[in-house]
């Protein structure tokens, strides 16, 4: 065999392998979505949205869990957005290339990809132990801590994309720094920051591990932030691990709701950024 032939054969073999692996991977990932869809759709009854989680062996829905997830995710984002945006602002507008900004960026990256169950442990230590019991509030804190680094990161990135000429023009007109940031930088980066917030919502609405020992779970309807609250991910976890067919059905239904929400948020966020880059 000549050298050219060996090279060509290697190329063909590698191409075939890459094709095979890619199709296998897409097949498996497709199978996951397919199972989710077929099992989830059959569980999708109106009662899913009108009744609370049942005791084993009887019919019911996921209303309390959906409500709990929505409340906790919403409150966590409400808390995390100002904190994340402000911290990102400092790094991008004031810190820029200072040493402090580099350190914060690094710390933020570590928090961004730290195992979420560790965040759960942390919140257990600072909230649950201090209060003496599990509570929805602890769940909110845990979710907020997971959301903050995401928002910091995107805020910083998006403010970095705002051209300095805009800031300089505003400064030349005599506006103080805070006004430049609030009325020029934020406006220019608004869609980008919103994307970051949406991605953070998507991320925390599927998080299970940090809620396991903070918000715990609650079989009944509860809107008390000071008590354990039902939430979709933990309900899915418990119901899927259970031996009861009814519960497993509900778990699939919940899984479908979560995945659909997360994917919809991601697609929406993507459309937002596409519009932005398309215009500039």
């Amino acid at each position: 065999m000549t050298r050219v032939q060996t090279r060509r054969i290697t190329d063909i073999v590698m191409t075939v392998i890459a094709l095979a692996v890619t199709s296998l991977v897409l097949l498996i990932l497709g199978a996951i979505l397919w199972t989710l869809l077929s099992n989830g759709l059959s569980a999708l009854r109106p009662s899913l949205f009108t009744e609370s989680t049942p005791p084993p062996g009887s019919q019911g829905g996921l209303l309390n869990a959906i409500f709990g997830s929505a409340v906790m995710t919403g409150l966590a984002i409400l808390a995390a957005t100002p904190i994340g945006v402000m911290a990102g602002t400092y790094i991008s507008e004031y810190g820029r290339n200072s040493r402090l900004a580099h350190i914060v960026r690094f710390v933020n990256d570590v928090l961004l990809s730290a195992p979420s169950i560790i965040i759960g442990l942390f919140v257990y230590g600072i909230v649950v132990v201090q209060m003496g019991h599990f509570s929805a509030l602890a769940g909110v804190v845990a979710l907020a801590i997971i959301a903050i680094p995401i928002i910091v990161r995107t805020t910083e990135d998006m403010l970095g994309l705002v051209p300095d000429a805009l800031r300089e023009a505003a400064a030349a007109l005599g506006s103080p720094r805070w006004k430049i940031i609030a009325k020029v930088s934020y406006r220019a980066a608004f869609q980008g920051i919103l994307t970051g917030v949406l991605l953070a919502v998507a991320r925390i609405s599927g998080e299970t591990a940090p809620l396991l020992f903070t918000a715990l779970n609650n079989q009944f309807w509860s809107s008390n932030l000071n008590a354990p609250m039902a939430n979709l991910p933990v309900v899915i976890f418990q119901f899927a691990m259970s031996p009861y067919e009814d519960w497993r059905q509900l778990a699939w239904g919940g899984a479908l709701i979560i995945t659909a929400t997360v994917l919809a948020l991601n697609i929406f966020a993507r459309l937002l950024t596409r519009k932005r880059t398309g215009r500039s």
Partner: protein
Amino acid sequence: MALIDDADLNRIRRIRNGRLADIFFRWLTWSFMALVLLMLGGVIVVLVQGAAPALKLFGFDFLITAKWNPVTDEYGALVPLVGTLATSAVAMLVGVPASFAVAFFLTELCPYKLRTSLSTAVELLAAVPSIIYGIWGLFVAAPFFQATVEPALAAWLGPIPLIGQLFSGVPIGIGILLAGLILGLMILPFMTAVMRDVFETVPAVLRESAYGLGATRWEVVWKVVLPYCRTGVVGAVMLGLGRALGETMAVTFVIGNAHRLPKSLFDPATTISAALANEFTEAVSDTYTSALIALGLVLFLLTFIVLAAGRRLLLRAEVAKTGGGK
């Protein structure tokens, strides 16, 4: 006529107010930035504090003891630690070559029209919550592994000395092999997305000149693209590894939660994250809780090192790109 009239005074007042607001705003953003620093510090302090009683009691032996006995209140981290490392190793062995293959396909082989939609699909899959991978593993993959894959593997690879040991034992589906594969599948879209981004930083000129010299597609990727973005690819792999080590939900469903040292890949075991997820709320004694927090501390240090190294490398790749490109 006064030297300074009312309009001047107003202007001065406005400037002074602006300065005050400036100081206030800067202080505000600074304090939130400090909060981010405090959060990481807080995580470390809380973990160390919580782990201290167990670590004091068991000392360094905690890391190398295989005992995990809530009845006699004796704990060691060896089994979950081995489980975490073994599942992550399986995940990386499968996930890294596979994500490289998919990234290769997406950047070099895929028809241009399909490229954007497929890349978007991969990125969206990276956002699917890990619990979904977990329940799919439990309900679909586990029975399939029990009935088909594991007996076949045992038949093919079992007789081979040394590695045959890894594929022996009772095929029950749930265990290290399945948990590792599910993990690999879960981190695959993520690693592929990062790798593809890194591949795209290669200047077109480099690629084109390689093709111009008669290189095949594989040679372009293997000998030009990969060496050019070596640091970036290693960074992507490290980030994937960081995820695999700390992942909870995808593993907890399919690991079997058995506190026994696994002898083969078919054996059920436990990982640090799965032990935490399953046992933390049920831990009755203080030592039990403390031992679990100590496990968390070990996991945190492990992922911290891996992630810090990964971010470092990716950052360096970025600097090299912007510094060398212009």
